[in-house]
């Protein structure tokens, strides 16, 4: 059975418009680039089966689906028992850059530290920060999505920002 061309076009538009943002959200929530990509793919497969309702804010709708999918991954048995990060050599870390090797290395190190600091946050703090800062959700929307109070969201957000800024200032002072 062939799909309705209109629905197909809408899916394509959704993917073209929001794919990168949703992939980044998944990647940051999970702290894992490839797993984030996988989950992002799952999100768009789900969207193909159940498209966002007419009139809904597509980006927010997709972000909700993505956050829930990331939740499912982290709650899964596989994540708890078998997922483990390993340190591996990555050539892209050492790749050439027009900024010069030292500046490039410093920037890359700082980026690494910030990514690592994001990974060190609690899951709640990370989600709150990403939804509030990157997705631009309001405190109330984040609170509703995560089932927390607005005050709690503000506290989580402040702690997340403080932790990330600490890392940033540490690396600048070195």
């Amino acid at each position: 059975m062939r799909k309705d061309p209109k629905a197909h076009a809408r899916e394509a538009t959704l993917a073209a418009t929001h794919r990168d943002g949703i992939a980044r959200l998944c990647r940051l929530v999970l702290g894992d680039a490839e797993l984030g990509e996988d989950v992002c793919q799952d999100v768009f497969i789900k969207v193909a089966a159940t498209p966002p309702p007419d009139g809904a804010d597509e980006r927010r709708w997709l972000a909700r689906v993505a956050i829930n999918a990331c939740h499912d991954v982290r709650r899964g048995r596989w994540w708890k028992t078998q997922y483990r990060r390993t340190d591996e050599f990555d050539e892209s870390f050492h790749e050439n850059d027009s900024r010069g090797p030292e500046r490039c290395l410093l920037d890359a190190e700082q980026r690494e530290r910030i990514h690592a600091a994001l990974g060190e946050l609690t899951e709640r703090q990370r989600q709150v920060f990403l939804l509030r800062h990157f997705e631009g959700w309001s405190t109330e929307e984040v609170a509703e999505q995560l089932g927390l109070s607005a005050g709690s969201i503000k506290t989580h957000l402040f702690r997340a920002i403080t932790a990330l800024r600490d890392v940033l200032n540490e690396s600048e002072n070195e």
Partner: protein
Amino acid sequence: MKAKMSSVNRQCLSDESLVAVMYGEGSTAEDEHRLSCIECARRFRRLEQDMTLIGNALSEPAVSRLARRDSSRRVRTAAPRLWQPLAAAAAVVIGFAMVWTQFADVVQPQGTKVAGEAATGGPSRPPREIALKGAPATRIARAALPEFDASVYLDAALGGALPCGWDDPLESGCGAERLRGAVSMPVLSGGDHYDDLYGLGFAEGYGFSDADYFAGLFGVGG
């Protein structure tokens, strides 16, 4: 409300308030204070700069090992962890049982005798007997291989005997001149068990030291 505004205007904003202001959730008073206070304005600018840097850093994919995953990153961990402590406990219990069995078979009769003598104020015994009693059972077991009589061997050692089968190729054999008049150590059948005993005697805290050994050898001291 007026009082609150004036107090906010007097005091610098907390970091939490600055964050709220940055996200457009601060009160009017806080916003006004931020605009009028040089220090708060400076802190606010710094906060914005930091958040821009953080945002830029997180917008780019993590370049390396910390957030990159490839197929090898999905490494199976040592699977169910429950069996590990159980296996460790079982190994400890088995090891303890083996040691205990050997200890009981080899040392218990001699140890009991020594203890009995001590209780009756009997003759003082050489420290190595006590050493044998308290020595680790694994060493005892190693020293007490078949056809090995520890007490005979120890008595000979007390008398200053040297072992035959000395490892040093320059001093091989049990020549009288090498032993300097000392009594030759009984030769143990089946191998060089002296090494076992010697090793036992040298164990710290068991009373059979270099000093004992050479004192016996040269007939010096008790």
